[in-house]
């Protein structure tokens, strides 16, 4: 058997997960629709004054992104767990950490990236300025991968548990607060005419930090859950 290189393995896992998701497009779409719906509900709840909507837009989009990424987390490993694929992955000679990283990337492409792409349209509903819209996209682009990475740990820990969906939110949401603060903060900084560099740098630092540690920790969590 040919030995897979690390990148080859990553590519293989990502391609497989994307293909599986394309066979069941509804799962991906429901998350996206949920995101759009939550964001659209806010103006109905707080009133249509453009001044206030502009102010709260970034926060609303970020909270909605956080919630909808929680919604898709339980699916990250559960299908593979149920049909026994995950067990084979644990037995495979390749590094489990790399495998988990592949699954995280695939999860982000399916649940994070669509949100990033549709966020500017929702921003227009909130009458955001062009610079603020750009910043929202950049901040989401840096922040949503962190949600998938931290989420992977929660998804792995709650694998196969009763009520895993609610539990995973309970575990992961508090850990995601820094992302929310600096992600929404970047847009607010642009709105008040300041530089968003510090917010973006911190988001970038979180992402690198998470990229180094979370795949390993999630792999350990999977081993614990599969014992």
């Amino acid at each position, binding site marked *: 058997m040919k030995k897979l290189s690390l990148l080859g393995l990553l590519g293989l896992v990502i391609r497989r997960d994307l293909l599986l998701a394309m066979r069941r497009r509804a799962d991906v779409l429901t998350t996206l629709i949920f995101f759009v719906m939550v964001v659209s509900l806010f103006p109905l709840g707080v009133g249509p004054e453009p001044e206030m909507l502009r102010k709260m837009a970034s926060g609303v989009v970020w909270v909605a992104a956080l919630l909808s990424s929680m919604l898709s987390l339980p699916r990250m490993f559960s299908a593979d767990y149920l049909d026994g694929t995950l067990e084979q992955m644990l037995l495979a000679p390749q590094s489990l950490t790399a495998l988990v990283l592949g699954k995280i990337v695939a999860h982000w492409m399916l649940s994070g990236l669509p949100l990033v792409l549709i966020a500017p349209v929702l921003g227009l509903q909130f009458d955001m300025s062009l610079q603020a819209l750009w910043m929202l996209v950049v901040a989401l682009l840096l922040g949503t991968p962190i949600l998938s990475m931290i989420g992977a*740990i929660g998804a792995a*820990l*709650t694998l196969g*548990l*009763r*009520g895993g969906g609610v*539990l995973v939110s*309970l*575990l992961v*949401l*508090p*850990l995601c*607060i*820094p992302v929310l*603060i*600096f992600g929404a*903060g970047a847009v607010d900084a642009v709105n008040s005419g300041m530089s968003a560099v510090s917010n973006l740098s*911190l988001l970038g630092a*979180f992402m690198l930090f998470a990229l180094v*540690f979370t795949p390993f*920790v999630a792999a*350990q*969590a999977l081993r*614990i*859950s599969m*014992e």
Partner: protein
Amino acid sequence: MAINWFKYSAPTTFYGLAGKLIPFFAWPSAILFVIGLYIGFFVAPTDAVQSEAYRIMFIHVPASILSMFIYLIMAGYAALGLIFKTRLSAMMAQALAPTGALFAFISLWTGALWGKPMWGAWWVWDARLTSELILLFLYLGFISLHASIDDIRRADKASALLAIVGSVNVPIIYFSVKWWNTLHQGSTIKFSGTSMHIAMQEAIFALLAACWLYVIAMSLARVRSIILEREANTTWVNSLPEVRS
């Protein structure tokens, strides 16, 4: 003579030791509570700025310090359990979590009671309040993850991993919330000396010690119950006098 350092890392031997140790922590704790509360409420002078309401801090400060400290101790035990696979460490982590959550809650509650007369609001989105609230969420996450896994070994390991991840995240959360917003007053006790009256200091240190001893006594008592619960089917538990009667 060789000493067996690991003698008390077995639940069997620790159960008896913990039972003997509890009074040595519980009684001093109770006495220090009485002394500390007496000094705090009757001896310490009225504050020049905050009048009588400042006395809430005699409960608030020890509770806040311990809520943070207990999380670190809990994560430390969790790490020990994960690395050395000692069952007792996981039990200690499980025993500490409810007390930590309790102190985080007391800290928030007393903080709200203090905030109303001082700031004019029950709740302010200030850095320390917010991170204390998040700390309470982390405790609740730990407890509920442990409670929702039936297999006790998996529950121990999974919640241990969560506690370690949480302890790495706590400073990140603290600083991000701090940069986000700061309103809370700075610490008054510093290593370079303090501006507090001596009676206030005495009260606060007495109550801190009392809470500390309470935590130790409480977690020892709880770990004894956990040992009994987990080892209920073993002969040594069933031959204990308190179980047989």
